[in-house]
């Protein structure tokens, strides 16, 4: 019995190695094949990837260009915003490609610790505000003015809102003044925290599909906007300084000029990748398109980026050093 088993395994080994086929490492370098002579000049770029699709779209395009055109090696690191900024200090992150404000982090890492610098605007305009699903905007056109919100408060009542209208706030990553706004604008609403972007989007998607009322905090650019075009409610317009005191704020959110932040070391390194990131600039529509490739066409980020790059050669040319 035992000899038979041993003999059998020997036979299997021999037969398998006989008809083995292609060997590992034989077919021209495999995955690591892209590193060209230019790679030495560029080296490795540590790119933080914050957890939203728009960011991923920007990061994918920058990474694709850096790898294919500049021969860089791009290390993508999936991190939340604050951890990314910490990475500037510890030297583990070279660039954040889409930054939404964060004056406190800028103060700490750019002004105080001097480990990060701004690399200019991405060209994307960030808008934050209160939104309703399109069917509501059609059915109740005047809901787009905040002054009418109290009229519709009862529509938005839910199990969570204590008999008031529910204002659904979202991702805990975003700064919100909504509690103060509700109070200062004397609205009969209660802020309820959905707790995550996923929960917020799910609620909006359901509201549009089932034609149920919903009002909530949202923002653009956002891939979901290409699925359901949410309609913004106009709050009292933003004026410089009207949000200085978070307790007394009674105006809309400021428009955000989304920008790029890089580590000081990376900026001083003279890497061609730094120049690329500094030059990188595109529009909200560009980003939404790549985001749509990723979310609805289910392309991998690098495939989505390659597709967009192929169609927008002129824009890409302008970024290159």
């Amino acid at each position, binding site marked *: 019995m*035992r000899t038979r088993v*041993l003999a059998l*395994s020997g036979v*299997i080994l021999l037969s*398998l*190695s006989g008809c*083995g*086929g*292609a*060997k*590992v*490492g*034989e077919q021209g370098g*495999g*995955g*690591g094949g892209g590193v060209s002579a230019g790679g030495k000049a560029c080296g490795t770029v540590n790119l933080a990837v914050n*957890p939203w699709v728009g960011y991923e779209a920007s990061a994918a395009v920058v990474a694709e260009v850096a790898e294919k055109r500049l021969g860089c090696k791009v290390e993508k*690191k*999936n*991190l*939340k915003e*604050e*951890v990314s900024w*910490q*990475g500037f*200090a*510890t030297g*583990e992150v070279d660039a954040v490609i889409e930054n939404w404000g*964060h004056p*406190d982090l800028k103060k*700490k890492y750019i002004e105080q610790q001097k480990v990060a610098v701004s690399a200019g605007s991405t060209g994307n305009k960030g808008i934050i505000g209160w939104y309703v699903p399109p069917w509501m905007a059609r059915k109740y056109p005047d809901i787009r003015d905040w002054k009418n919100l109290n009229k519709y408060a009862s529509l938005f009542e*839910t*199990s*969570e809102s204590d008999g008031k209208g529910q204002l*659904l*706030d979202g991702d*805990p*990553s975003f*700064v919100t003044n909504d*509690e*103060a706004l509700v109070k200062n604008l004397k609205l009969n609403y209660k*802020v*309820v*925290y*959905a*707790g*995550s*972007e*996923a*929960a*917020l*989007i*799910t*609620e909006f*998607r*359901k509201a549009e599909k089932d034609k149920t009322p919903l009002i909530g905090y949202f923002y653009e650019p956002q*891939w979901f906007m290409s699925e359901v075009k949410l309609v913004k409610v106009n709050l009292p317009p933003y004026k410089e300084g009207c949000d200085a005191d*978070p307790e007394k704020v009674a105006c809309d959110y400021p428009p955000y000029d989304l920008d790029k932040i890089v580590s000081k070391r990376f900026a001083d390194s003279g890497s061609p990748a730094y120049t690329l990131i500094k030059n990188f600039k595109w529009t909200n529509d560009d980003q939404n398109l790549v985001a749509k490739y*990723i*979310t609805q066409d289910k392309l991998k980020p690098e495939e989505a980026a390659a597709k967009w790059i192929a169609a927008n050669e002129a824009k890409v040319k302008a970024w290159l050093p």
Partner: protein
Amino acid sequence: MTAAVALRRLARPRRAWFVAAVLGAGLLAWPLLRGRDTLPLGGAELAGAHRFLNGAFEAVDASRNSNPVFLYGFNYLRLLLDTSTTFVQGLISQPAYGRPAPVLGWLGVTALATAVAWLAGNLRVALLACLGFVSFGLLGLWTEAMDTLALTLTAVFYSLLAGIPIGVAAGLRERVHRAITPVLDFMQTMPTFVYLAPLTLVFLIGPASATIATMIYAVPPVIRLTAHGIREIRPAALESGISLGATPAQLLTKVRLPLALPMIVVGINQTLMAALAMVTVAALIDAPGLGESVLQALESLDVGTAAAAGLAIVIMAVVLDRTTTAASVRRPRRRPWWLVTAVLAAAGIGAYLSFIYVWASTFPQAANFGPYVRRAVDAADAWLLDSAGGVTDLVRDRMTAWLLNPFQTLLTDAPWWWIATVAVAVALFGLGVRAAVLVGAGVAGLLVLGLWQDSMVTLAATVVATALTALVGVVAGVWMGRSSRADGTIRPVLDAAQTLPPFVYLVPVVGLFGATRFTGILAAVIFAIPVTTKLVAEGIRGVRASAVEASGAAGATAWQTIIKVQLPLARASVTLAVGQGLIYVLSMVVVGGLVGAGALGYQVVAGFSQHELRGKGLAAGLAIVVLGIVLDRIMRAAASRAGAQRA
């Protein structure tokens, strides 16, 4: 002291009467006091404690480059962990050593895993391991699964390296045991989100931080169970060793450790499961693997992709669980050497082939069934949303209006001192001085942390979730305990519910029930039911057969047997089950925060995401720990008191 004596002398009916009187008086006073001193705190507002904690964070930040502990101690630790993880990744998941592929490809890893499962367990487990590993490839997630496995194995390896000696020390010395128990409680109830960001400051972004985060959560079970195993050794075995003149070292290596081994293996099993539960959370700080797939899918609400990755995690958990469980059962007979040799040789051949040939190294792309799984899940999700909408709304609204809201209002709308007084008085009359002191300290802790009202909301949700968990757990557990067929059917479902990352079902559940507190409770109940049910079933099975037979012989119906014999006799297990359910519910408070439960869970997540709120997030985490420790101790005291009265 005198009060304690006087209390002890109170007759039992008198004691119950006192508790009832306190509660009654409290309820009568409630309407008069409603709305006063409720200590609310807005979402962006900070209390003194939060600013203090922010300052503490800043101080640690600032000293990072000058403090020798950071410069030397932590740096070498980080280096060690980074190197280890990268090494294991190089073996099974990532290209390494100048090769475009890992050292071992899918065939080699599968063959080795199968051989290990067979050696540690039996043929059935080996088959399960083989199918499980192949399924990673079939799901199109081979590399991700191997990254997860590499990270998990590294974290578990170091957890055992640290945990088993500590467990042994705690098993030998009561003082050590008493000293580390609260630390372990803390490590298990403190939400991971709270220490995730600070960890990356100390250990930088990378495998080290992910490993440490995993270890913090995963090391307590192996410590606890090792200590338990060492402590529970039959004295006869020890005495026989001593009486033969064994030195303490001989006693440890030849008697204690071998005898405690089955229990230690159970500890290893639980540590493995806990480590896998951290896969998704660790992905928040760039841990590679299946968790990353889940989180990325979540960004675009891609339920199918998240579910496929979640399924792979469940499969891995089941394979690891069954293998270690089989390993903890002592086998009477050794296997013939030639069979062992043959199996090892076969695994070696597999490993060799996967080192050399592409077909055995990279899982064939043609066999990727991932997209089908994704589409099937998406279709099921859509169907569920379409067909269940109305019913789910009704369930949610009724539960919220009739159960949750009254209870929560009672807690949140009352003055803090009213709650403190009633709680301390009830603890004093119901459970004694020690419990009253504990409750008092807990109240003081929540006040200091500055999140009183959020704590009350979370407390209400926790109690409701625990009650629901207990209800379902006892019913299902009794059923499982009485029928092995029910056990066979339900157990895999429970395993899946316990190991499926909540992030996977977050989107469908929000789709069904909206971003509400009820959804948070539901997520917690889904997560807590398995452990409660299993423990109840264990207890029911543990009831002596003779007692059940006697009951049947006396003409009792099945219902009477359950109510009058099985449940009372399994009371200890049922109490333990509900207690564990409570801990599991609390560990889901943060996930609740992600789906609309708000309160402490939301504060923890916000603290992780926003720089100015991190002090508040830490305070919220501490508040969860306070709630957990107080509730757990109170339940244990109540259970042991009930036990003492019965005896």
